[in-house]
């Protein structure tokens, strides 16, 4: 699916793109469907299983879209995390000079 | 509310009162052992 980016550079991964918006919309939708589907499935209603199934599919789709980006963000961020931690402790200990 | 809780309304064989808690206890115990081993090993170098 060329419409959904699968390979990310560090710079691209730090931007907010359409994949983030898709993930958000699918995430909210899956929560609604999982809520309704679980309750109706526990009562063994066929419509409940259908709704739950759609909710699971949407969750998988959400993961498929956003995971490559999250992996890139994490990998790149970790390279700088040590430096950021030092900066954090400087603020904590009032060692930042203005 | 306590009047609702009557002994003669129980569903299921009494042996379930041994099997189910025992099963869940074993699962929890094994999970605890796994967590302890995994994270102690991972943090050994620190």
């Amino acid at each position, binding site marked *: 699916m060329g419409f959904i980016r699968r390979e990310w550079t560090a710079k691209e991964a730090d931007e907010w793109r359409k994949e983030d918006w898709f993930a958000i919309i699918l995430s909210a939708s899956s929560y609604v469907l999982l809520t*309704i589907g679980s309750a109706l499935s526990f009562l063994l209603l066929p419509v409940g299983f259908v709704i739950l199934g759609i909710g699971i599919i949407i969750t998988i789709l959400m993961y498929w879209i956003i995971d490559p980006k999250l992996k890139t963000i994490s990998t790149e961020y970790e390279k700088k995390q040590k430096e950021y931690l030092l900066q954090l402790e400087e603020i904590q200990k009032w060692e930042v000079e203005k | 509310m306590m009047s609702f809780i009557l002994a003669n309304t129980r569903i299921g064989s009494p042996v379930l009162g041994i099997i189910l808690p025992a099963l869940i206890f074993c699962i929890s115990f094994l999970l605890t052992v796994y967590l302890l081993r995994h994270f102690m090993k991972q943090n050994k170098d620190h």
Partner: protein
Amino acid sequence: MVTFAFLDWLWLILYILLMVGCGALFYRLGKRSQSDFFLAGRGLPWWLPASSVYATHTATDTPIWVAGVVYKYGLSGLWYAFFAAWCAISAFVSTRIFRRSLAYSQAEWQSLRFSGLGAEMLRGWVAGWQVFMNMFILGWVGIAMGKLCNMLFGWDLWIGLVIFTSIGAIYVLMAGYWGVVMADFQQGVIALLVIIIVSIWGVMAAGGPQTIIDKLKTYNSTCEWRVPADTQDGAQGLLRISDSGTSEVLGASALPFTFSNAFDEARYVETADGVKKYVQNTHESETNSLILFPSDADVLYTGRDYTIVWKASEGKRLVNVEYSTDNGATWIMIDENHQNGQRWRINPLSFTGSFKGQFPVAWFVTMLFIALLGGFGMGTNIDWYTEAQRIQSAKSVRDASYSIWAGTALVLVRNSIWAAAILGFFILFPHLASSAEYEMGWYVVGFKYLPIGMVGFLFAGILAIHLSTVSTHINLGAMYATRDFYHHYVNPKASENRLVVVGRLSTFIILIGSFIFGTIIGEEITQWLIFALWIMAAGIWLPNILQVIWWRFNSWGYLSSWIANLGLSWLVVWILPRFGIIPELPDYMQFWLLIVLNALIYLPVTFLTKPEDMDHLVSYYVMSRPIGFWGPVRREAIKQGLL
């Protein structure tokens, strides 16, 4: 009372040892540093914080309030618990931003996002408020445990409050957050399995899923009614049911019933219990009257709760329920646009109108708006402060995102499992009029229907639910006290050992504080405080989003929104309606009004004060990469060669 056999004691003691042992065994890791004691060294895979999210938000009072809303509203009650869905968007937005900031707490984040005196004031304010909040939550949850133990064993309230929270404190004192999160995982598994088992039993006790659905189609209509306390003693009452759309009167009391101030408990209980057969359609007498209860033989006591019962009319979905005390000259609304019959309980989207009834579309839309869009902010939901610790303990940004998403998904599924069991409880006991009775429904199902020998195990499961919540809040409150107060303001040069010692001391102080809170929390105080929390969250909902997405929103704007909200919420909810300046509004309308009124204060304050220091903002932006309106900061960062 519930009595324990030898097997019950055996399971309870074994489970307590297992749960406490699981947490305490991580003592060596917890004591290494502040980062270990409060964030487990920032190295956890997503499934551990996820299970902690789930376990923490499953507390002893959770099945009580979920049962309350599902009993009253059917499956539509699930939406009352849907506010947790702020994590749907947060998992990929504010979680990501917060994790990148590396702040231990939301208070510390204030000094990264904002700068100067305003940032420090915010940090101090949020830290202080969180220390108080965690003690309050611990007291509230602890007292719920106390009430449960009082119901089951007849113990004084303080015993249940003190003993079990103290048991949780053992491994929190020893191992800090390492203990919390490991025990949460184990307790989460136990709790989930117990919830599933008890809920299955609840559905089976009602005859199974198909029986529940079939009976909901045949049961008569009900409406809860608290008889006004100022009704005249001896007055004669009539009831009327009419079609909400056409106002056609479907039926009314043929003969009046009587109101009385002379409360007779035995008669009240007998009457209330007798209503069950009317709802279940198993009453013997043949009557042409639409209204089955109350009839002319009944005496209704003022100030008491009753369940009105009438036959469901075919084709009428929504009805108005009214009463009269002047022989039908005037009618007073009990409930407008009330659902007819009982089959609506199976439909999670059984709306009662755009603005009317107990489940209006306007409420639902407002709830979705608050819940989902709140994920763009930090602190829009009170649970954010707990989640922030879990986010920061995850080993990567990716793990943080998935932990929040998955933990909340499990919370929502858990609610749905409970809901099915509560529908079963409704089938068995459809006549309960007071929330104090029906909200205990899930616990009743467990203690009543599980096989002999599982009572002790069920209590152990409840204990797992309790410990996972209290351990989190003890450690979280201690984190704010240690990191944000002691380390930042008192002893910035403290060694890691010293910080762990202070962490343990803070843990103990939070524990004792929670006991004091628990013993002074009464019914009215709890209601008042819960209300205060909701209103506080409502008024600063938008500022909590603005601080994340808008560069220009500064510390003074945010501070002024907190202060303004404290005053405005009193005005909107109590003072102005009392003087008739505005009507008493439903809660979702109060939310919108507070949003607007608060903005009229913090927006001018923001624009009339200077923006935050640009270098500080650039440093924050490069590290966290927030979404939204950050143009000038981004351009400056590019200019400085940082992007």
